[in-house]
């Protein structure tokens, strides 16, 4: 194993500390936490789809704390307007001019809670900002802070009062994950804590201390992008994509944006695994999270991930 240990580089072991810290708050979800870190390193946005009360918000809060990022949370409701999110210009009487009042989107980590409860108009305002890294209001373009990372949560689309995101907007999220129920042991600890702790999980998450700063995060992101990829693995990625495009049982094939996402997520995973080169395992690990929400817009998360797994079993790792 080639451990990345140059002076200018940030010690990758920090990532393990982040994982451990978050795990203290969100119990029994190490694998998912690792995926979130991976998404962050690949400079992508994250969509968490799950039932209410599974710890989506807790996860986002914990991450904001350990990464030392400015953090805002917006609860999306059906009457939320784009201005509520982006900000408005207000007339200042003393100066006799309009001054721009920044909305909650001007932050480094935005938790967009229950994104599919709001109207498509507001959804698209957020998704545009995600893609462009900037907001245009009153004819003026205002850049968003660096880094800008969105964790959106949504309820399964079958729930009432939801506006499902269209395929084109789902595509903007690098990964979509499902937290799922905790296992029995984790559940027991959660129940035991109820009696002992004075405050809830949210408070626990707020108490976490920052492990890395913004510069370190940006260096890590750079290091992830520098992971080397052999031709054999590019071939593998292309085989996976063309299988998804040629197979009639798959709703829609993976787009070029999807294949870029797959590769950058896999590189980030390789970095987490302390390597500066990519292995096929990296691609396979991130594949369902990166691909499942892109191949078909309908159906349950489980079914879509099953399709993604099916693609993996059908495409040979080494040659066609």
């Amino acid at each position, binding site marked *: 194993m080639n451990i990345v240990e140059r002076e200018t580089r940030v010690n990758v072991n920090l990532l393990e500390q982040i994982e451990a810290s978050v795990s203290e708050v969100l119990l029994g979800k190490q694998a998912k936490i690792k995926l979130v870190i991976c998404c962050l390193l690949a400079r992508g946005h994250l969509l968490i789809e799950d039932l209410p009360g599974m710890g989506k918000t807790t996860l986002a809060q914990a991450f904001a704390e350990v990464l030392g990022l400015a953090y805002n949370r917006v609860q999306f409701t059906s009457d939320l307007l784009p201005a509520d999110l982006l900000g408005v210009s207000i007339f200042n009487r003393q100066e006799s001019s309009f001054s721009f009042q920044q909305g909650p989107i001007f932050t480094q980590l935005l938790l967009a809670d229950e994104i599919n409860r709001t109207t498509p108009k507001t959804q698209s305002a957020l998704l545009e900002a995600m893609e462009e890294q900037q907001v245009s209001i009153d004819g003026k373009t205002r850049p968003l802070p660096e880094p800008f990372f969105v964790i959106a949560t949504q309820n399964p689309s079958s729930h009432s009062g939801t506006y499902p995101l269209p395929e084109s907007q789902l595509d903007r999220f690098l990964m979509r994950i499902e937290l799922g129920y905790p296992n029995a042991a984790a559940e027991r600890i959660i129940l035991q804590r109820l009696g002992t702790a004075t405050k809830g999980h949210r408070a626990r998450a707020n108490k976490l201390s920052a492990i890395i700063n913004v510069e370190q995060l940006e260096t890590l992101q750079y290091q992830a992008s520098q992971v080397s990829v*052999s031709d054999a693995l590019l071939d593998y990625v292309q085989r996976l994509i063309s299988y998804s495009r040629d197979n*009639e049982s798959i709703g829609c094939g993976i787009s070029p944006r999807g294949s870029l996402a797959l590769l950058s997520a896999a590189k980030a995973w390789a970095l987490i695994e302390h390597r500066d*080169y990519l292995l096929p395992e990296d691609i396979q690990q991130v594949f369902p999270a990166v691909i499942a929400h892109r191949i078909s817009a309908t159906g349950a998360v489980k079914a879509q991930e099953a399709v993604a797994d099916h693609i993996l079993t*059908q495409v040979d790792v*080494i040659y066609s």
Partner: protein
Amino acid sequence: MLIARQKNNQWYWLGGGLAMAIIPLWAELPGWLLPFVIAIYLWRLIYPQHLARQGKWIKLLVVTVSVMLLSVSIGSIFSLQGFVGLLVLASSLKLIELETRRDYLLMVFLGCLISACQLLFYNSVLSFGYTLCSLLILHTALLQMFINSESAQSVKQRLLASILKVTIIFLQALPIAIILFIVMPRIGSIWTVPINSNVAKTGVTDSLTAGDIGQLNQDFSVAMRITFSSSAQPSVSQMYWRGMSLAAFDGKTWRRVPEAAPLSDKLRNKLQKVTERTAGPLYRYQIMQEATGRPWLYSLSTPIVRNREIVQGQDYSLSRHSPLQRRFQYEVTSAADFIDNTPLGHEQYLRYTQLPGAGNPQTRAFAQQLKQRLGSTQNIIDFLTEQYQHGFSYTLSPGKLSTENPIDDFLFNTKRGYCEHFASSSAFLLRAAGVPARIATGYQGGQWSTDHQYLLVTQAQAHAWVEFWDEQSGWVRWDPTAVVAPERISRGTSEFLLLDGRAQDIAALFRKNSWVRNWQLQWDGLNYQWHRWVLGYNSQLQFQFVKKLLGAVDSWRIGLLILLVLGLVIAPLMIKSSRKSGTRQTDPVIKLCHKLDKKMAKLQLHREPQETLSRFLSRAAIEQPSLAVALRSIAADLEKLLYYPTSSSSAEIATVAANIKKLKYR
């Protein structure tokens, strides 16, 4: 996969192919069947889901009712029509539950079977071409199942591409089909299905009444085709294709008298001897006669045949034991100058001079006068010839003759008629004068094909003439029609129709155009060659052809020929595919992976597609502990070669290759 989900137009291809397969069978099947099939297809197209979900009992009911309907309307279900009808019915009912890919493939293959069924009923070049076309459409439908409907091409491009692909596949199959046709043993029919005997009776009948041949004149369908194999050939005006002789006359109709015995052995031997001599004209030819539904065969006089299927009568006419239900091919040698002057027996004399008790008194009196005044038969013939040349005219619309004394009316009053009138009245006149006479029927003349390969005789050339008895020459042919209207003989009926001013018939007008006629003749020529060489390809012809092709008929020569053709077809494909896979395997590391997989397969260890090398080899190490060390080192080295781009050097590749080679059971 559900068919209903398919976005491409395979439904239309399948529908089109099935329709093409079924439409030619229209005439053979009950009329309601085709609308029934179309209705089911349209229903299926409009409600794709609804119909497939029908209950078992409803389906059973539909099947029972339609099979019963079919058996009632065909009559017997155990006939060829019945079986084909069942097949068509089954294919259309299958549409109801067409749901999966498998059903669709089944439909395509059923369609192929149905389109081949057409050849059971019709076997011209045209129907063969048509069958090929419908097979092409059906195979295109088959291809639709396997192409990606979401590719970037437009519908039109995709359509052209798939038709092109199917055409290429057909062309690849063609040499194999041809060679198998040539060398496969021609086994006769192993099984037969009774065909509802519906061959219409056409052509010349064994009786002759006024008007009969006048009707035939309007019919330009093919009667027979003749190929001469001898260099000697009679001129077209001398070609009298004699069918049979009619001896019994009841005042209106001449009839054939069934003969008690065939030609005597003595005469037969005499005839056979004629073929051995070298001098004198001998015509050898092959006749391909269309199905007539009657047993009569036609030939130039005097015919000599060796075919055991053919019976020769005492009047030298040829016939078969059974009626011609399909095209029949036979070879004849004719000796034009053969004379049989065996004196007529008493019974025969009576037969050939027999007349009804009363009628046509004027003719009878005239005949008696002629006999007394002129005496010899030849004189009477000469006199009649002269008479006919003056005052008589040939027409196809002679008008009605008196019903009581038609011959009197014709000879002394109207003097207008066609071959039948002339033949009938001449024979009557000769008999009244005491000369034995009879009527011969058959065809006269013919048209040479454009390349002069064969002679085409149509029903329009049906003809009747007279034969009279002469003590020296035996039976002598005399054609009064040729005397009255020589142009009828020299130019043929179709042109005569125009001369006659009766060309209202548009078909006849078209025949006037030489290019139409030319084209018609060429088309007929193609059909003739098809019948002769493809449909008539029997074991004898096969033996001759293969011998000519290969020098001798040996099993090894035939085997070699088949292998050669197969090789020629397959070689380009093999080269193409090997090139394709060759480009894939240029990477030496990938080659190593292939080698490793093969080696591991020998050790009963198979890599799953999604299994990476390290995972696979560590699984293998658990199952084969003795190899664990070697496997781990190979895994590490090979993964490094594959995924760590800077490290692939030829030395390392060689090391890994050697390590893979060393893997063995211990």
